[in-house]
């Protein structure tokens, strides 16, 4: 993906991507379908190397909600905070809105330019009278020009601001796996603390953990609902996952 493509938004946004994943499975928007496509969604993010910073945040945000949904389905003991539930509802609502509007897009595209209403042709004959405003000072023109230059959007097109990908998913799975081998028990909180508490890291850590749970490499325990989540290697003899 080159810079120009980023600038012109040729990639799919997180909502669109998510909707497509759900629809490709012929499912409705629900916790179940969202949980089901979480892995695919995260896989897709992994492939996006260079995104504008602002959009990365959007992807990560959606990813974090998917993780919530998925963890809820994997860890039945996990009770969601009201805000967490609200953000899940919100995501479902965004998907529903996007689905409706996206559905209209093709109609709009078809209408555009198909049988336009024309304004009157611009006359080539100008009856020109020199009619200046009361005053126009060079200084005024300069100020306006400076302001215009100032308000030009700071071109993200040219700056190759990409996410500093805090840590890649694969790396994290590796590291988690290795760590599980050396220390039998590891709490999620302490683990993420070790890895610098950046939001992205926490999410990706969590994701990686769930991935490992899925693959049966580790087992996750949460004693009470506000407790740390404990991770344990199910089979200490298993070589580090690579």
């Amino acid at each position, binding site marked *: 993906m080159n810079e120009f493509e980023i600038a012109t938004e040729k990639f799919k946004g997180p909502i669109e991507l998510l909707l497509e994943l759900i629809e490709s499975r012929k499912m409705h928007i629900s916790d179940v379908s969202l949980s089901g496509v979480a892995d695919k969604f995260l896989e897709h993010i992994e492939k996006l190397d260079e995104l504008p910073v602002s959009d990365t945040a959007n992807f990560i945000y959606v990813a974090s909600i998917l993780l919530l949904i998925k963890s809820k389905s994997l860890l039945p003991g996990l009770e969601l905070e009201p805000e967490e539930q609200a953000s899940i509802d919100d995501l479902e609502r965004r998907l529903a809105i996007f689905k*409706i509007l996206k559905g*209209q897009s093709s109609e709009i595209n078809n209408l555009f*330019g198909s049988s336009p209403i024309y304004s009157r042709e611009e006359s080539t004959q100008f009856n020109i009278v020199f009619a200046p405003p009361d005053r126009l000072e060079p200084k005024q023109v300069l100020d306006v020009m400076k302001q215009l230059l100032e308000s030009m959007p700071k071109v993200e097109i040219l700056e190759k601001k990409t996410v500093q990908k805090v840590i890649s998913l694969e790396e994290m799975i590796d590291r988690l796996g290795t760590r599980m081998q050396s220390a039998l028990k590891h709490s999620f909180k302490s683990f993420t603390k070790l890895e610098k508490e950046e939001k992205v890291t926490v999410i990706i850590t969590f994701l990686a953990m769930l991935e490992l749970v899925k693959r049966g490499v580790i087992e996750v325990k949460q004693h009470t609902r506000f407790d740390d989540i404990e991770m344990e290697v199910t089979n200490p003899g298993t070589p580090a996952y690579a």
Partner: protein
Amino acid sequence: MHNLRKILEAILFYKSEPVTIAWLAKVTKREGSEINEALIELENTLAQSDGGIILVRTSDHVQLGTSPDAASTIEQITKDELSGELGKAGVEALSIILYQGPISRTKIDYIRGVNSQFTVRHLMVRGLIDRIPNPEDSRSYLYQPTIKLLTFMGLAKIEDLPDYEAIRTKLNAISIDNPDNN
């Protein structure tokens, strides 16, 4: 009253660009409400005579244009060209602005899940949308379709969009319990 309808038609013919109701009120020295009434009258007269000229309206602008029925003929004699494709992002943003406008960029971003700064700016530069101050937040704007956009789509008014009311009702039903997403 009839006379005002006549004067307005002449002015709109003469100006041949979108003008505001407020401007029409000023140049005719009438009230905005009178202008609105006379414009409805004009709209009806034009519809009745089923001629080649129609009235195109947005919430605040009005203009005369050719009937979409004549589009293929005019296309042969015009040098104007519809500039360029809209692109995927452009269509998406337009769809949101058409069915949900006037709408803030924050909300467009929220629905699309991506930053729409460049897309929105590009649509503005092409004159397909314009912006008005956001009554709820003086630092931001609300974006809405222009007459130019409607005319490109062959629509005399926004309500002529396919399924306009149905879609708006559906969308309102979804966002109704969602106060904090603007």
